[in-house]
């Protein structure tokens, strides 16, 4: 290839990387800037001194640890429950032809299209009537339902990649379907289960608006709600806010690293290598 084009290509790649990383870099930069330098060196690319004070103070002097724990409970439970339910549903879609299947698939697709905010008021009323406002379980139920359609289609695509002959062979050899599932299919779907867990966890970890609506007590606030409340109350302590932000990034990034190898190949082709 001619050198001008190659240079152009690398410049373009550098541009994309710069654009993608810059906001995250800036979060980290302000988080490690000592308080007294925030305003004088606020717009410098790197502070002349570094500190981890902000992180220490966020962990010891604020409620962020409790927000973090709440978010972890909600996201992990949502991911686990959703993946189990979606695996069962995806298995049914992948292996059976039955009356009503097109209708159910259509309803699931529609739930992905209509404005979810449409049901925020009715859900608030229902949850209030059940006496579940300010409880983490209400969030888990709501998030699980929201994520089931997508997770089901994802799991279906993973099951589609495993030949049905495998479990039929096991069943002919005397396994019940359940045994065939447990001994033959389950080990093969592990990567798919992992990817689904990751997607649902990330979605639940970042959900903000329903959590704002359903949670108002400080004890049960999830991370997004807690951080936003913190921002609107004490919007001057930049260092602490950004340190909290950096910590909120960690779980998402970990899951991202874990699932990213499935992103391109796995998601669209539905192919699983056994």
């Amino acid at each position, binding site marked *: 290839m001619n050198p001008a084009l190659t240079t152009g290509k690398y410049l373009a790649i550098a541009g994309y990387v710069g654009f993608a990383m810059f906001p995250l870099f800036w979060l980290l930069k302000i988080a490690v800037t000592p308080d007294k330098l925030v305003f004088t060196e606020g717009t410098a690319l790197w502070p002349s001194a570094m500190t981890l004070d902000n992180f220490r103070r966020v962990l010891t002097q604020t409620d962020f640890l409790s927000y973090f724990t709440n978010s972890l409970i909600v996201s992990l439970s949502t991911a686990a429950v959703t993946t189990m339910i979606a695996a069962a549903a995806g298995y049914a879609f992948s292996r059976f032809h039955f009356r009503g299947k097109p209708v159910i698939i259509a309803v699931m697709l529609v739930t992905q299209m209509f404005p979810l905010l449409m049901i925020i008021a009715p859900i608030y009323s229902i949850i209030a009537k059940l006496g579940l406002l300010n409880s983490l379980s209400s969030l888990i139920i709501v998030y699980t339902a929201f994520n089931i359609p997508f997770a089901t289609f994802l799991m279906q695509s993973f099951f589609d990649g495993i030949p049905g002959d495998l479990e039929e062979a096991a069943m002919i050899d005397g396994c019940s379907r359940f045994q065939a599932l447990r001994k033959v299919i389950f080990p093969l779907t592990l990567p798919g289960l992992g990817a689904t867990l990751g997607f649902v966890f*990330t979605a639940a970890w970042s959900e903000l608006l329903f959590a704002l609506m359903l949670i108002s007590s400080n004890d049960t606030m999830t991370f997004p709600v807690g951080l936003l409340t913190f921002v609107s109350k004490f919007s001057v302590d930049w260092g602490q806010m950004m340190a909290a932000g950096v910590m909120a990034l960690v779980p998402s990034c970990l899951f991202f690293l874990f699932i990213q190898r499935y992103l391109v190949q796995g998601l669209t082709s539905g192919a699983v290598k056994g």
Partner: protein
Amino acid sequence: MSRKAPGEIRARRSFYWRYVLEPYFYLAPAILLIAGVMVVPLVIGISYSFQSVRLLRPGGGFVGLENYLDLWSDRKFWIALENTFVWTIGSISFQFLLGLGLALLLNTRFHGKRLIQSLVFLPWAVPTFLSALAWAWLFNPTIGPLPHWLTAMGILGEPQNILGDPELAIWGPIVANIWFGIPFFAITLLAALQSIPAELYEAAEIDGASPWQRFTKITLPFLAPMIAITVMLRTIWIANFADLIFVMTGGGPANSTQILSTYIFTTAFKKLDFGYASAIAVALLILLLIYAAILLVLRRRLVKI
């Protein structure tokens, strides 16, 4: 019945189990949850739009079309409608073009591609509230560099916060949304690119096709179905996407960034006026249905030709 052989009954029972009941056994939890948490509230939500449901003012009941009549004469609604178009079109066009560019780049060979790929896809994994806060801080002249850079480039007269300027504020969330949405397009388009048979390009090269010709005659036609479906779905998703704007500007200043979905949320969350919020939501739903219908008609027209 009693004359039937036991085996036949068992066979029939297992037939029912196998073909009628068993799939529903696996689907039951999913169906129950979706029905209870999404379908039933959706119906209730539509019925709310014909009622007066205000938590701060008990009482109410059915009011017919009153919410919709109020909506018709609500200036904020029309501003929000206009902003929804600016927000959606501004976001989707840049997300798509930059996402396509990134996918094309990632489909070539270069050093350190795996690392680069995870870095450029990372914004997709950043929680939306955090993306919103990070960008709001970048636009803040006290701690963010963007106002200073924009001033140095001559785009801004002085280093001010564009989120506070009614003329420019909507571009703050749009930039954040572009940042957040590029990976989605890049991922889906890259997958489509990788499924194009390499022989096609080799044959075209032998026949002397220029790179531009190869792009327009092979790549684009192959990508077209994927582009159509992702752009359509993403448009609906962005029109519904309220988080970024809610966190960055809250719809302000002076409603200059209020879109329909943030208007729904602020009406429900801050004013606790569920009837009116539901009416706005129904209006948004109707708009999206019209959009989907237009697309389907267009598609049929195009396919005929």
